[in-house]
């Protein structure tokens, strides 16, 4: 089914000329293509049959109906075009996912006018279709899915925006390069972890009581305290915001290190490390990452998790190309 390589290259080149990449693209006659669908060709065949009927029976009213249907086809072209014309399509963002998961690209469609748009489908290549209707609102977002496989930056390329509205006889479509990209973390694979090295040198280190979550007492709320450790009961009784202290929730510091997984190849190591991050992130643990040439200092919280996963995702990948 796929066209030979050189044709595809030429087509891609032509598309790049005609539809250059941009984060926000307004659809107009330059950027929209229209061709009949199978049903549309069938409709044209029907018109041909009616014309034959009219000619052979010398039946003028049937000729008029054939003319009406031809004219209807042309009107349908205009309606199909109007359904997409004037729409502004832009890429908003894509949440990072782990390799193998489905990434959702948030794409926004806005129209400056008050016309209704219906049945606009978005998809990447062979990915699933996602349908959008702009009825009363001026802006609507759509989450276009794409399955991921490898870590790193995922660039799905051109998104296909198409519509068969209102009669299904014609397909109006365009391929937009919205510079869509999303970060794919390595696939987390747990197993055979050699104990990560406890961090040393930091003050106030305590013996870790692994697996214990004994309640130790309350403590005045400080910024940075995890939300799930707040005592909402006290807060509700207006006794101030108190945090619950757990014996094992006090600073435990871990370094996630490349060399902890000897004998594995790069991707396997990254996957193991990734699994560790996933495991550690919800716990009250400070952790850092050490990869050859890359080091993320100790830290915790969401931003730490993101930074560590990002480094894992982009390890030995030219991260420069991800910047836009």
């Amino acid at each position, binding site marked *: 089914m796929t066209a030979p390589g050189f044709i595809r290259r030429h087509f891609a080149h032509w598309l790049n000329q005609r539809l250059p990449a941009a984060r926000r693209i307004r659809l107009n006659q330059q950027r929209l293509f229209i061709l009949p669908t199978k049903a549309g060709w*069938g409709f044209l065949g029907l018109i041909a049959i009616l014309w034959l009927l009219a000619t052979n029976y010398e039946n*003028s009213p049937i000729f008029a109906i054939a003319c009406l249907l031809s004219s209807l086809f042309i009107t349908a072209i205009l309606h199909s075009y109007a359904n997409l014309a004037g729409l502004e399509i832009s890429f908003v963002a894509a949440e990072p996912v782990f390799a193998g998961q489905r990434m959702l690209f948030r794409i926004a469609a806005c129209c400056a006018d008050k016309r209704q748009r*219906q049945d606009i489908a978005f998809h990447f290549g062979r990915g699933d279709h996602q349908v959008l209707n702009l009825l009363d609102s001026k802006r609507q977002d759509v989450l276009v899915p794409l399955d991921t496989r490898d870590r790193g930056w995922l660039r799905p390329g051109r998104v296909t925006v198409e519509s068969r509205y209102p009669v299904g006889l014609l397909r109006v479509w365009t391929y937009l390069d919205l510079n869509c990209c999303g970060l794919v973390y390595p696939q987390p694979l747990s197993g055979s972890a050699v104990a990560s090295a406890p961090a040393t040198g930091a003050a106030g280190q305590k013996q870790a009581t692994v697996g214990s979550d004994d309640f130790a007492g309350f403590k005045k709320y400080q910024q940075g305290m995890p939300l799930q450790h707040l005592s909402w009961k006290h807060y509700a009784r207006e006794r101030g915001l108190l945090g619950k202290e757990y014996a094992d929730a006090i600073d435990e510091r871990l370094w996630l290190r490349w060399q902890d997984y000897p004998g594995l190849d790069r991707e396997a190591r990254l996957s193991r490390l990734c699994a560790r991050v996933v495991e550690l992130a919800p716990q009250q643990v400070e952790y850092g990452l050490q990869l050859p040439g890359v080091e993320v200092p100790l830290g915790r919280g969401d931003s730490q998790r993101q930074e560590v996963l990002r480094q894992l995702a982009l390890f030995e990948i030219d991260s420069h190309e991800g910047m836009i």
Partner: protein
Amino acid sequence: MTPQWQMPRSGLVWLLCAQAAIAVGLSAALPVWILLLLTVNFLWRLQVHRGLWRYPGRWAKVFLLLATMAGMVVSFQRFTGLEPLTTLLVSAAGFKLLEMHHRRDGIKLVFVCYFTAVLQLLYEQTIAVAVYTLFCVLLVTAALTGIYQRAEGRGSSWSPLQRSGAMLLQSLPLMLVLFLVLPRLPAFWGVPGQQQASTGVSGEMSPGDFSRLGKNGDLAFRVAFDDGTPPPAQLLYWRGPILTHFDGRRWSQMDPVNFRDGAHVIWGGNTSTQRGQHWQERIEKSGQRRGYTLIMEPTQRPWLFALPAPESTDLDVGLTREMRLVSEQPISTKKHYSVSWWPQYRYFADTLVPWQRRKVLEIPVGYNPKTRQRARQWRTETVTEEAYIQRVLQWFNQDFSYTLEPPLLGTHSVDEFLWQSQRGFCEHFASSFVFLMRAGGVPARVVTGYQGAERHPDGYLLVHQYNAHAWAEVWMPAKGWVRVDPTAAVAPERIEQGAESFFSNSQSALTEGGFSLSRFRHIDLLNQLRLQLDALDYYWSTWVLGYQSQQKSLLQRWLGEVSWRSIGLLLLATGALVIGAVLLWLLRGSLQARRRTPLQRLFESLCSKLAKAGWPRHHGEGPRAYRQRLQAERLTEKVANGNNALMALTLYEQVCYGEQPQYTEAFYREAKRFR
């Protein structure tokens, strides 16, 4: 696509409506059991949609299919022809309702519906049927839109109808242009017509035929004269079948004869270049040539009607040796043809070919002995043919009377009529007159057709079935074939006043034919209504049904010369106009939204001035990034007034994005200062 695709409710509703409307429209052509079958299909489909029933299994389908086939065999005994085809399509559409697993099934059904809707127009082409078909097309289009409707919102059941109505309305102008301009081609191949009883003049004449037609108020044809002035009523003899052969009771047409002076029929006004003298050259016409167009109602018979000495250049119209017009195909839909005619004519005046003379003198042996004997006696008493004819006509005038209810006649019909009853209708007079002529040795034949016409206020003529008439033609040396109407000798007012006034005075009413307002012509208001309706139908016939014959002259008037190029240009120009208008209407919102504010326009002109100076704004570069780049590239040092430009950009940013409209004036000033 999901394996069990569910048709949107609005699509299904309109599809069912469309199918029901089409079935009702075609019900006259369909056997009754089909309607029953359709009802079953509809109910089943509705139950499927409600989730109560399932689609029929394979055996149920096979059973339904076999039942339909059996029904068709019983109803039609055949599978070809228009009615079986219609039945097949309608029942197939009904079955398809029970087999909709994909969207494409719905689409196929919609196409079949379009086709069956149009089939209505093959059976009848009246305005009413055309309007109804248009209504059906609207419903089918609503079904098509409904199938593709995904956004179910408020009022969604009606919205497909509204949308398809709007689309069809927007399509009308272009349709009109296409209809008017697109050239019509001649038929590619012969097609089966519908099976219908033939009407009008029958091509034979048995006693009672014409008196039956005399009570029929249906329209036979309309005639429009090119110069708008029809000839006087006594010249309006519309010649149809010529009856030469008489078997004692029944007059019938002669078999077509191809003789060495040419074929029986010449098609499309071809003047033959055969060796020897062609019969066509023995027709002499003189006086001013005039033209008329005749629109004939369907008769299912191939003959056409025309004034004497006709000539037609229409390709499917032929002229026979008997000087009358015939059509290639039986007339199954309204037939338009244009004819030229001359006030004076003479044909076959030089001589009558012996075989032809024999044919037109033939009388059956053993019938009507008294008439034969009396004819020979009178012929010997008179010197010339003219005198003999005068003698007979005089006798008719004195002793005979005209009635629509003549007494029945026995074996020797001419004898009984001439010597006993002496009361009759045109057929009796024509028949006995020709018999008398032949018995007296004068070549003669019966001509059937119509006589007279009703004049419509709009200037055209209406010829009804009660105008059906039979008269005679006799051949005389040096004069050729001459028309003699014995009825005119008996009841001259029948010819002069026209049939309708003649009959309205007599007690016999128009009792045959379909319901027609002709019966109430004595009530002025209803008569006005009848004439108005007839005018509507006349213009419909002329401008829609028979547009093919108008098209050439109309296009010539518009374009000067008619060629593919000029037609193409006209289509292109009008098409572009219409499409442009529709598109403007469709995009009305966007175009307004695209209108720029003065602020934006000034900003754009500033950017273009900078671009001319060699510092274009990059694609997608915002004002701030632009300004920063210009600063970094040291614009102020390289371009005069560069400072103003940078200032203007800063101010623009403040006005647009910093929500500080007080800088607008300053922006204007700075932007204009930069040049």
